[in-house]
């Protein structure tokens, strides 16, 4: 309990430190918004098939990038040492950092979603499922970003490493290309990609339909992935944080 309170203090400080830089927030939104607009202008009738994917993509890029920033920045300036000296466990630090990183993606995706709902009259059939998808996806991506970022010292190194994963999974997770259209070899990869499950939950929330017969499947899969990445992040942190 005490440790959770301390984790939230860590998140709050991170938000103060890193989010006060307005370009960060604008850039996180600008690209997906422009992309969305381009798709809409080209063919207004099909934008709904990609909208959940774009929201998922915003979440993926926003959260992994933010995780890289909140970790490598502090590693470089030596301030991560302050946290390691404080009476907080490694899992507490991971929790604090994940919340602050995830908050960024959640905020940008929410603004994007609100924009779509208001401007393009995007429906929202099942809000609770949408929210679950948003939060579970946000936490998973932030943890995955941390697992990678904690190994390096420079933000750009972390970004390069992250891009090895981020761009490929963008194309096999049902963001731009429907899962049914994927070649057979890509299907199993799509099923282990957390982005697939996040996007399908968002899709169910928006349209009431999804590639999966029930939202419980992606919810359970995401919950499992979240747990595993939580444990992995703890280990990665213990190993690499003080290097």
């Amino acid at each position, binding site marked *: 309990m005490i440790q959770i309170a*301390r984790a939230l203090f860590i998140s709050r400080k991170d938000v103060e430190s890193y989010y006060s830089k307005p370009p960060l927030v604008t850039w996180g939104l600008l690209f997906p918004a422009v992309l969305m607009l381009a798709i809409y202008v080209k063919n207004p009738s099909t934008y709904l098939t990609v909208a959940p994917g774009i929201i998922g993509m915003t979440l993926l890029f926003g959260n992994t990038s933010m995780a890289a920033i909140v970790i490598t920045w502090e590693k470089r*300036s*030596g*301030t991560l*040492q*302050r*946290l390691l*000296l*404080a*009476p907080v466990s490694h899992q507490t630090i991971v929790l604090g950092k994940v919340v602050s990183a995830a908050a960024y993606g959640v905020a940008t995706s929410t603004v994007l979603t609100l924009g779509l709902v208001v401007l393009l009259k995007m429906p929202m059939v099942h809000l609770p499922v949408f929210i679950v998808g948003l939060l579970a996806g946000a936490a998973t991506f932030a943890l995955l970003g941390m697992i990678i970022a904690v190994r390096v010292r420079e933000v750009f190194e972390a970004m390069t490493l992250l891009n090895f994963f981020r761009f490929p999974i963008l194309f096999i997770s049902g963001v731009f290309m429907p899962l049914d259209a994927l070649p057979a070899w890509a299907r199993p990869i799509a099923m282990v990609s957390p982005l697939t499950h996040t996007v399908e939950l968002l899709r169910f929330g928006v349209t009431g339909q999804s590639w999966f017969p029930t939202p419980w499947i992606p919810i359970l899969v995401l919950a499992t992935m979240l747990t595993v990445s939580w444990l992995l992040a703890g280990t990665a942190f213990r190993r690499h944080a003080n290097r």
Partner: protein
Amino acid sequence: MRRYGDLVALDRVDFTVRRGEIFAYLGPNGAGKTTTINILAGLLHRDAGQVSVCGFDIDREGVAVKQRIGVVPEESNLYPELTCRRNLEYLGQLYGLGRSERRRRVDELLETFDLTEKASVRFRALSRGMKRRLTVAASLVHSPEVVFFDEPTSGLDVPSARTLRELIRTINRHGTTVFLTTHNLAEAEDLSDQVLILIKGKVVTEGATDEIGRQAAGAEILSVVFSANVPVDTLLAACPAVMSANITDEKWRFEVADVHQTTMQIVAWAEKSGLKILKISTETPSLEEAFMAILEKNSAGSEVRR
């Protein structure tokens, strides 16, 4: 014990610090001082040995240890983008101080460290001395039982260093145990009750500071450059006050007990031999030299150094 690859950075180092004292951990650069602090503070794992801090095992009860210690690292590691007040406030939150207690403590520390006027200035905008002071203040937010200072005065100008030493004394007078590393013998003598000397990861000597200081005092180094090569035997024969001699490049370094007497002998001898003295100066022996000398004195009465 701690290894970095093949390098044994700490080798069978064993010591106990008594509650309430100032303990100086003295050694030249690379001796293993920072490594020791990092192990004691739970930042670094050791390869062998036991560590207990404030009665808690560092591995099993790390959080309990961290709650009771403060660390002032070599390089200030506060948040550059936060103000002085927010830095201290944040640490108060991490160490579990309640809101009103936090506010009171932060005000008190800003006052003690003469930073009240800078309370809303960002850390990165402070001068070096102020940065160091705030870093010390930050280590005290939770009123720790032990504070570790890693080379607290290195890189500070003389007045800032003096102020800081005075603050360390004050902190200790209020009952806090102080563990400080330094490569400065005078600083250790000035501040500490107990001193341990570490060279290349090994404990050379340990004891009450006055005692060790007496042993280290004595020898001075006289360095001389002559206009031509000098045969060492004739020189030693002509200048009995020289305790030992060695040469690097052109420069002789003589270990001497009495600077005046030795200088006179060298000058007289150079005059007689038709040599010119191009340079002459005294140097305080490096820590390592001073303590190698102690080591030799301690280890053997039989050794003849001349």
